[in-house]
């Protein structure tokens, strides 16, 4: 496998190989749904190519509202880490997507067998979640509205 997402750089080579041993190369066509809100969160992906839109269902006949998009190099899916292990959002391929897919059961087994790997992986996931949480907070401030960004 070449062109690995930089998210794996944090792992020593041995542990990276161990993690990659359970990974699958997958691809999704434009418009494919990778998962739906409230579905079982049993895997995650490291995106290598393409864009994925995270969305949330709205009431009535409206289409899902896109709340964030993820692209190459980014992690897709963290709901498998903590209960209730259901997807918080839905995900749709905006373009053709290529990714490394990691089954949660296999990864958790690796983490149980190698706590160092588990600790490193969870630190990485925590960092990603924290970054997204902060980015979400910043967006909630409506920074780019005229009253938010001030006069220029």
């Amino acid at each position: 496998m070449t062109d690995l997402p930089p998210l794996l750089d944090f792992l020593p080579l041995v542990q990276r190989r161990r993690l990659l041993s359970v990974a699958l190369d997958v691809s999704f066509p434009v418009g494919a749904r990778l998962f739906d809100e409230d579905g079982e969160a049993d895997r995650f992906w490291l995106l290598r190519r393409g864009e994925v839109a995270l969305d949330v269902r709205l009431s009535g006949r409206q289409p899902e509202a896109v709340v964030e998009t993820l692209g190459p190099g980014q992690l897709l899916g963290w709901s498998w880490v903590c209960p209730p292990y259901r997807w918080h959002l839905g995900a749709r391929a905006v373009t053709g997507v290529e990714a490394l897919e990691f089954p949660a059961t296999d990864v958790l087994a690796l983490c149980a067998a190698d706590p160092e790997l588990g600790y490193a992986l969870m630190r990485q996931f925590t960092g990603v979640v924290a970054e997204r949480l902060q980015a979400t907070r910043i967006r909630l401030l409506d920074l780019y509205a005229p009253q938010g960004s001030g006069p220029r």
Partner: protein
Amino acid sequence: MSAVTPPLPYRVADTRAETADSRSVELVPADRELPPFSPGQFAMIYAFGVGEVPISVSTLCGPHGGLVHTVRAVGAVSTALYALRPGDTVGLRGPFGSGWDLDAAAGQDVLVVAGGIGLAPLRPVVHAVLDRPAAHGRLGILVGTRTPDDLIYREDIERWRDRARVGVAVDRPAPHWQGSVGAVTTLLDAFALRPDRTHALVCGPEVMMRHTARVLMGRGLAAHRVQVSLERNMRCATGHCGHCQLGPLLLCRDGPVVGYDRVARLLAVREL
């Protein structure tokens, strides 16, 4: 420029709508010409009878050879400037302030991160880097806006895609929007940041700049490799009135572009 100078009359050569509330205005000297501006510097533009505001130059040499400023109508003066039409006259003082330090980025990757109309002061940087491709490494241009309709310089951005890594993220997508949604920092992964050989130039709302700088530093970029363009209440623009003071800095004179290593602590102080 440090001396207090009277505004010189400049004539509006052309205007161009950017979004529903912002417009680019090209100004040419009616008589005498101000000294040349560099990317990141600003002019004090006087709407006669209304008032004067600092506006960064968004193009150093427009289609008519003049200075282009992009104005968003948010207050009395900016609304008056937004309403300008070809042939109208304004008063212009400048150039003021520090520009973007492109010398520091010589031979290095240049990452431009803009929020909203903060792309305006960065546009001359993009032009400068594209004009001298051998002087720098890769060019990344990341832009965040509230909605797709709020995106300025759409045609420029499409042209830049051929020669730079360009990403645009919106907070609120419209139904037709197929691009990125989220904070502008989410676009960083696609740029493949090389922390030891990148200089980041950031302009936008202050909170956005702080957030961006922190994310960049979290990716290993040293604070002195991050430049931000700060705004305060600039009145005299010559370092005398003190309205734009930020701790030891007078931003009209020592800014608006400052290294993040100099201001990170100052920006965390309440009511400084």
